[in-house]
């Protein structure tokens, strides 16, 4: 085991995959400047700075992926994906299907998302469900350094376009990563804590919030199970249903806004497939339908907090 930050875990995964496979490369605005270790190790043809033009960065990745490379592109902050939406959604996501399966798009799009740096709405927007809603794409949003490393490796090896959203606030958080960390399969949730009374489903930074809430609940004799989705698409439906079948209660927690968010999907899934196990209505705790504020207290209020989760669970338990 070594201890490393999420940012280092991403770099470690990149380095290992670039070492393993000469067709893996990375480019983006400042990638070669900021990931100097990769530049020194793999050279300027495989680690490239680009012009400030997200559309051509993503389009170049799609064209390269279709013809033999495995590009990783860093588009910096998630709201900038608006400029690359066409290339990610209309090209990378659709051209395999449109071509009748003639071409594959093994590419990875990295972007930072979420509150924590006070960077305001044009740099902080949880846009993951835009892409979950688009066919042909896979979306991962891990919460721990080990998962970032393992899921990045799988994302790079996957023959489909994979978006990896890194929660800004997690970037410098540290955790243990196994020395020979292997790829973690996409589409498998992790049970972070076992429990009998209620299931808390979350992903990215709010997993930690759920863990804190579970600690508090444990003090009150309530045993919460915490599920970290890790991948939003493919979604580990079994893990959710199995847990709800056991606990009979579900609270979904995420920072993205509620309407048509991932939580809505999970609530609907449970209503369709595990309704009979439910002992209380499903609850969702999400960010508001508002752009993310820059002001620190407002930004904190934007993100679901542990005490709100505790209150939600208490209400489900009947007081």
């Amino acid at each position, binding site marked *: 085991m070594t201890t490393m930050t999420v940012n280092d875990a991403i770099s470690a995964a990149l380095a290992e995959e670039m070492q393993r496979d000469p067709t893996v490369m990375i480019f983006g605005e400042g990638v070669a400047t900021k990931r100097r270790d990769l530049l020194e190790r793999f050279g300027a043809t495989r680690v490239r700075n680009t012009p400030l033009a997200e*559309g051509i960065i993503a389009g170049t990745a*799609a064209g390269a*992926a279709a*013809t033999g490379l495995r590009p990783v592109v860093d588009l910096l902050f998630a709201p900038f994906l608006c400029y690359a939406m066409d290339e990610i959604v209309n090209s990378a996501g659709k051209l395999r299907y449109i071509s009748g399966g*003639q071409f594959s798009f093994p590419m990875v799009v990295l972007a930072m998302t979420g509150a924590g740096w006070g960077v305001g709405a044009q740099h902080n927007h949880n846009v993951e469900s835009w892409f979950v809603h688009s066919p042909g794409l896979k979306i991962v949003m891990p919460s721990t350094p080990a998962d970032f490393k393992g899921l990045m490796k799988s994302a790079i090896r*996957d023959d489909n376009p994979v978006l990896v959203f890194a929660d800004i606030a997690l970037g410098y958080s540290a955790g243990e990563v196994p020395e020979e960390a292997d790829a973690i399969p996409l589409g498998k949730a992790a049970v972070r804590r076992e429990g009998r009374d209620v299931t808390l489903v979350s992903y990215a930074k709010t997993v930690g919030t759920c863990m804190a809430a579970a600690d508090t609940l444990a003090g009150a004799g309530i045993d919460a199970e915490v599920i970290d989705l890790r991948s939003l698409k493919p979604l580990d439906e079994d893990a959710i249903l199995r847990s709800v079948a056991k606990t009979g209660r579900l609270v979904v927690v995420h920072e993205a806004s509620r309407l048509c968010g991932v939580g809505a999907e999970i609530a609907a899934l449970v209503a369709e497939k595990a309704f009979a196990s439910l002992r209380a209505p499903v609850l969702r705790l999400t960010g508001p339908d508002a752009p993310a504020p820059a002001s620190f207290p407002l930004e904190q209020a934007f993100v679901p907090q542990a005490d709100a989760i505790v209150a939600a669970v208490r209400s489900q338990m009947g007081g």
Partner: protein
Amino acid sequence: MSIHPLDPVQALERMMLIRAYEETLIDLHGRGRAAGTCTSVGQEAAAVGVVSALTADDLILTNHRSAGHLLARGADPGRMLAEVMGKRDGYCGGKSGSLHISAKDLGVVLTSTIVGGELALATGVGLSRRMLGKPGIVACFFGDGAATEGRFQESLNLAAVWTLPILYVCENNQWQAFVHRKETMLADGIAGHAAALGVESAVVDGNDPLAMFDAASAAIDSIRRTGKPFLLEAMTYRLRGHFEPDDQAYVDRTELSHWRDRDPILCLRTRLEREGRLDAEGIAAIESRVRATMEAATAFADASPYPGLDALTTDVYA
């Protein structure tokens, strides 16, 4: 890699096949047998001239007006018709339709109908050629309308900075769907934009396949020699409407008749007759070959079944 010189009689036959293919499609559409299409009638010379200058190693990206490029590359008109009719034996199993046919075995990749999409992808295809040490160059066809999009500048700029082997071919057919080019750009053409980005360019008579072939050959030579991208602007005209059916009521009659006189097939044929390289008998022989090809193609497409409904959700993920 040696470049095959273009035989003008063969070029004429290929252009006539493209025209006949699109007329067949218009007819099938009129009878409710195929969806509407964007034809390239009037632009056959650019397609045949440029594609004939490519080698088998080269890759092609194109747009919604792609039939000429595909057929010039040797695509089977039966499989193309089948694709447009949504049949199983189409190049993409019927999932593309007319607007985004691609054919990997012909090196025709990533046909985009998002205007400018092919410009965004071309840099990546050029990059993979370079990084994987593959010999081919990448030919990217797009319209003057696409050149008014930001991706045009982004694409040329990155290709120049990264020295990517891309032949950009703008078919300036004067129209951008229902908007005349002169309404959307002040410049006379788009080649001028290239210089500012450090990309060499040439403007060519897009209705002359031999001129197109020569210019494309020179451009490809330059790309192979310098590694740098090159922009070729073919001055041509869209003789039919944007999307069949289209009565062209909005088109200036004088402009249309000026360009109809310059119909590339008519001009080449007249020239070959004048030069004594083709007589009435020779023309009749080409016409009958083309007709037979299209009859066989139609029969093939007709006979091809629709895809099974399970195809609805296959090929979404690798």
